[in-house]
């Protein structure tokens, strides 16, 4: 894939479609050439308004037809889309806008940026409403800068990422080749387009001629059956939920097939650890569920594919020569065209810890290759527990053992700050809570006997409070927010044992 030829090539796939909801509320399905006509019209309007290559176009919107028009029109013009997460509140958006020299800001939320002279309402994308752009807006001269996006940092603040044009082209090309995308494919996108992964999928589908449907995440379950995609990308929680409801009992394969639309060729997951049992269950039922691994800073690193899969691994590295390990077994990537050039709007230490001076990108993930070249992840570097005796281990190792105990729905292993003890937070069913304490005691004693002494669990906290984004125990990516879990149970974790 290359951007210079993307739109022209996409026009050649005349029989493929794109469908999404428009701002006027209509559910809009168009052929790809008709989509590109709308893109051209918007690009012409932008040119007339004074947009030139390298100018930034700010965009805050949820998934929809107009989002794609702005993205593709920017490609046509060589402008830089500066996309902001949909959920960023208006006051934070207003502060962010002050720091950036965008020619205009396109907003879906009518309450966002009131009175801003260069604000465009997303609903006016396809109307005759004239566009006002900031005549003093600068142009970014870097030819390789494709777009600016944000991802959430570990402590909840936003990290800005300068996305590379060549990095995007390389990654999308790898994806099309490894998964053999072609015009018979159809892709349902329901994760936010403000997360760059989804835009990569759009470019891949346009290049390969696959049909695309873009919806908001709230209707994902209805849309699977209605659109009948041949592939989807989703976090583990989605597959867990679908399996629990439709993948068990008699005629599970038929039920699951019907729910997924009957046309699935493969499904990709990542973003958080997934249970191996779940991967096995889907694959045994005939639905290839493939774990993949990447970080936005460098792009996809490894993936299982329909042709090559090993459950439990995140697949073989896409380019084995790019993948290295430092002395702490951290996965570090050295590649000619990483997906991201570097951070903007981020603290200095973040950048220096990730984009290393020697040109490698540190992922923060601890991993190892097996003899056949499959990559296994063992946890996050920053989550390593360092015991008072100087031993190190990953909480996930213990968590996997703990969640296999009867009645334990979630297990989060932390370290107390006061005594440096290993503490297990165990989420059990409320009905079992009175008994769970006794059962867990026995189980933990048995578990402690089977593991090295430095990993011994000194204390447990039994709760029926399920981790969620709302209570601060899950991140937006549905991973355990260990700091949040610690804060929630700090009193019980730090209690001095009698």
């Amino acid at each position, binding site marked *: 894939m290359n951007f210079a030829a993307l739109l022209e090539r996409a026009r050649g796939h005349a029989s493929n479609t794109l469908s999404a909801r428009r701002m006027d509320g209509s559910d809009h399905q168009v052929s790809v050439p008709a989509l590109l006509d709308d893109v051209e019209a918007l690009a012409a309007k932008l040119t007339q308004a004074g947009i030139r290559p390298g100018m930034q176009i700010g965009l805050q919107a949820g998934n929809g037809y107009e989002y794609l028009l702005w993205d593709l029109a920017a490609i046509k013009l060589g402008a830089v889309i500066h996309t902001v997460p949909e959920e960023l509140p208006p006051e934070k958006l207003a502060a962010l806008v002050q720091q950036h020299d965008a020619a205009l800001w396109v907003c879906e939320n009518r309450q966002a940026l009131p009175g801003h002279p260069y604000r465009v309402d997303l609903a006016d994308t396809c109307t005759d409403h004239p566009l006002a752009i900031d005549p003093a807006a600068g142009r970014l001269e870097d030819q390789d800068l494709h777009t600016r996006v944000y991802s959430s940092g570990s402590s909840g603040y936003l990290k800005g990422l300068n996305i590379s044009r060549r990095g995007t082209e390389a990654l999308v090309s790898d994806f099309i080749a490894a998964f053999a995308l072609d015009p018979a494919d159809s892709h349902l996108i329901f994760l936010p387009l403000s997360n760059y992964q989804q835009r990569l999928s759009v470019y891949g589908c346009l290049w390969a001629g696959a049909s695309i449907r873009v919806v*908001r*995440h*709230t*209707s*994902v*379950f*209805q849309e699977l059956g209605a659109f009948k995609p041949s592939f989807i990308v989703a976090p583990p*929680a*989605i597959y*867990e*939920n*679908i*399996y*629990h*409801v439709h993948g068990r009992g008699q005629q599970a394969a038929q039920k699951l097939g019907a729910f997924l639309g009957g046309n699935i060729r493969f499904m990709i997951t990542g973003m958080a650890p997934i249970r191996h049992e779940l991967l096995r269950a889907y694959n045994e039922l005939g639905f290839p569920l493939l774990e993949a691994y990447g970080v936005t800073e460098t792009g996809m690193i490894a993936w299982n594919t329909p042709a090559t899969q090993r459950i439990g691994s995140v697949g073989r590295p896409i380019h084995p020569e790019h993948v290295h390990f430092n002395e702490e077994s951290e996965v570090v990537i050295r590649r000619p065209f990483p997906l991201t050039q570097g951070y903007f709007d981020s603290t200095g230490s973040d950048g220096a810890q990730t984009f290393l001076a020697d040109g490698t990108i540190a992922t923060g993930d601890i991993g190892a290759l097996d003899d056949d070249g499959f990559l296994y992840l063992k946890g996050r570097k920053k989550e390593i527990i360092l015991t008072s005796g100087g031993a190190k281990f990953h909480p996930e190792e213990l968590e996997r053992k703990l969640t296999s105990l009867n009645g334990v*729905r979630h297990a989060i292993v932390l370290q107390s700050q006061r005594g440096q003890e290993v503490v297990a937070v165990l989420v059990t*069913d*409320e*009905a079992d809570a009175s008994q769970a304490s006794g059962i867990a005691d026995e189980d933990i004693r048995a578990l402690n006997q089977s593991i090295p002494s430095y990993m011994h669990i000194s204390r447990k906290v039994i709760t*029926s*409070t*399920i981790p*969620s*984004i*709302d209570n601060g125990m899950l991140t937006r990516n549905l991973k355990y927010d260990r700091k949040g879990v610690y804060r929630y149970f700090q009193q019980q974790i730090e209690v001095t044992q009698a």
Partner: protein
Amino acid sequence: MSAIIDENADVEKLAGLIRLAMGDEPPVAVIAAQTRFTEDLGMQSINRLMLLSLLEQECGVSLERHMTQLVELQTVGDTARFVASLTAGH
């Protein structure tokens, strides 16, 4: 009286779908109109979306345009009433 019976039936139907959507036994023994999805049942937003897709099939009414309002509702009873109003107007 009949409205109350209908509402109880709706809540009971919803309770069955909640059990299905959660995949496991919910952490409370009885699901009633005042039961809250997050605080009492510990439902994740994904469970809620699955519940609404099951509800759509069960009631034969499209909820797609109402998803934003539906995911804001806090209790089983509020959801039962909202869907009943849609079904009545269908």
